[in-house]
């Protein structure tokens, strides 16, 4: 291990070799190694190129609506006995944090001369964001989505098609996010010369965990400034839901060098950090839900966006270093939190960030009097029909 657990600045910095401690790597077939290396090379170039950064910042501001606000929740803070701040990624264009990553990767694809984007999606938010960026830049777009997810996120399937993307259903395995990733990788192996794989979370082979974190770093950078402007100090706790881990890594990156406690919240049925063991799937080594023989297990969560048996390698590393801790919540707690935020603050959250709120609500005693910054990674419009079915008449 080359990392020094105590030196905060060595954490979440550059990742020259694709490793996060003993996690990460580039476990891809030979056909994709060159493509991954090209993505890394081009991303590093672009990231150092002022014109590229200017173009991306312009899109984030004028198209996606950044900076996203920071909202102090008065009524809910009172109710929970703590001070709750929300980073409002739900207010971004397309309704979630996913647009930050996608605009960056779509511009990168264009820079690499690729005319087609392929993506996987769980809840459909990354698919919608990718379809949106493809429409904006005139790129072809194919999104793979598990058949189960297509059923529970019908609205997003329609949105993607409306945006001009082709949605293909993944019919194998658990027919959820993991299988959509498999199909997207199979597509990419065959089309790599013309296609960029626009991976939607801080996972996969190097450079994706690194690149996606850098593209979401804007969340943490803005939130830190906003917290300082509001309070003159950093929050005590920073929390976010963790599927693959992109929204969490984005907000954590702004606070890793502060005293703030970092808490990732996983679904009980997909707690890769909580219950997984190291494994290799989808291009990197990380914690993974798997059986004794190495077969990947199917996650089970109410939230399509968190229904994934793995987790990005940097979260595995942060957990092992003890710099972040990972909690899990049940579907029932999530449904309660979903309603709680709606009723007390007039904000209907996506089911994914409702996980983080469910943990805050459960841990309210431990958090009493503390300032808690929660990354509200997306809005709940996409989930209303599903929740209505579960809850019935209110």
């Amino acid at each position, binding site marked *: 291990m080359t990392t020094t657990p105590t030196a905060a600045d060595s954490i979440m910095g550059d990742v020259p070799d694709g490793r996060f401690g003993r996690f990460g790597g580039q476990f891809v*077939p*030979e056909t994709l190694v060159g493509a991954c290396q090209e993505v890394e090379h081009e991303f590093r170039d672009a990231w150092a190129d002022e014109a590229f950064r200017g173009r991306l910042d312009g899109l984030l501001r004028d198209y996606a609506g950044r900076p996203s606000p920071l909202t102090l929740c008065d009524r809910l803070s009172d109710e929970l006995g703590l001070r709750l701040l929300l980073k409002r990624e739900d207010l971004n264009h397309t309704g979630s944090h996913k647009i930050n990553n996608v605009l960056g990767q779509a511009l990168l694809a264009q820079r690499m001369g690729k005319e087609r984007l392929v993506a996987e999606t769980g809840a459909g938010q990354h698919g919608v964001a990718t379809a949106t960026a493809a429409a904006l830049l005139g790129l072809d777009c194919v999104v793979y989505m598990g058949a189960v997810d297509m059923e529970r996120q019908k609205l997003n399937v329609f949105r993607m098609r409306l945006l001009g993307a082709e949605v293909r259903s993944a019919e194998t395995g658990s027919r959820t996010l993991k299988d959509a990733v*498999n199909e997207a990788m199979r597509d990419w192996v065959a089309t790599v*010369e013309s296609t960029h794989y626009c991976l939607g979370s801080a996972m996969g082979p190097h450079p994706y965990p690194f690149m996606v974190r850098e593209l979401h770093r804007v969340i943490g950078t803005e939130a830190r400034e906003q917290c300082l402007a509001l309070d003159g100090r950093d929050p005590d706790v920073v929390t976010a839901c963790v599927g693959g881990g992109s929204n969490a890594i984005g907000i954590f990156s702004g606070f890793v060098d502060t005293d703030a406690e970092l808490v990732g919240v996983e679904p009980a049925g997909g707690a890769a950090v909580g219950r997984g063991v190291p494994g290799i799937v989808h291009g990197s080594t990380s914690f993974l839900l798997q059986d004794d023989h190495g077969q990947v297990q199917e996650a089970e969560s109410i939230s399509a966006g968190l229904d994934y048996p793995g987790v990005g390698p940097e979260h595995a590393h942060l957990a092992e270093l003890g710099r972040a801790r990972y909690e899990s919540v049940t579907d029932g707690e999530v449904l309660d939190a979903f309603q709680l935020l709606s009723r007390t603050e007039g904000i209907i959250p996506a089911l994914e960030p409702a996980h983080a709120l469910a943990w805050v609500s459960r841990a309210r005693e431990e958090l009493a009097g503390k300032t808690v910054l929660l990354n509200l990674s997306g809005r709940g419009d996409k989930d209303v029909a599903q929740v209505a079915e579960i809850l019935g008449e209110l």
Partner: protein
Amino acid sequence: MGTLEKHLRERRDSGRKLLMPYVTGGITDDWLDVIRAYEDAGADGVEVNIPFSDPVMDGPTIQAASDQALRRGTTPRTVLSELRGLDVSIPLIVMTYANIPFRMGYRRFVEECIQSGVHGAIIPDVPYEEMDAWEEAVGDADLDTVMLASPISSDERLAKLTARSRGFVYGVNVLGVTGERSEVGTWTADLAGRVKQITDLPVVMGFGISSPETAAAAAAPSDGVIVASAIMRLLLDGGSALEAGAFVADLRRAIDGL
């Protein structure tokens, strides 16, 4: 030199084209009979797949074969222990994805392979950059690690992966996943030629070989072929070990006629 490489070099140097059919371990009750039938049909080695839940380099047929085997309760240990008593004289090469040996522990996996009479390993999601830990676990065990070469591998990458490859070099005929294809494209001759310029290891081409015609077309510019999906489809459709063997015998005749 490993047993696998020595065997394949000898056969290749005697002017024979190499034929290596594939079988998903545990696909049927009598999957060991399938291997026996391959030997009788003139196979030079057999690629034995240890099924994995998420085979990203495989198309629908091999996914279905893996699913069927896993549903039957197949595990890495059942495959390896069933191979232990197998009475064939051609070398066996296991093919699986990285997480299978990683979960068991690379060293343990290598030991189990050796005990089961396996002489080669193909792990398509471990490119040479990620290979150190695996190579260290293999040490001087008689287990040849076969590297895959892609039509779009740069010359520099081909040189490096060929230098790390033992047994043979596995040339991939297509950009894409496994599965039957009606023709062999121009990449096959190009890639086989490029690899042959670098090494005198046998160069065996796989992916998309589905008929005597495609087998002959891919074997002509190379040292032989690997055939998987076409036979797995036959078995998935209820075909017998003998029928699988008969298909392999057809391929044998096609490449012997070259």
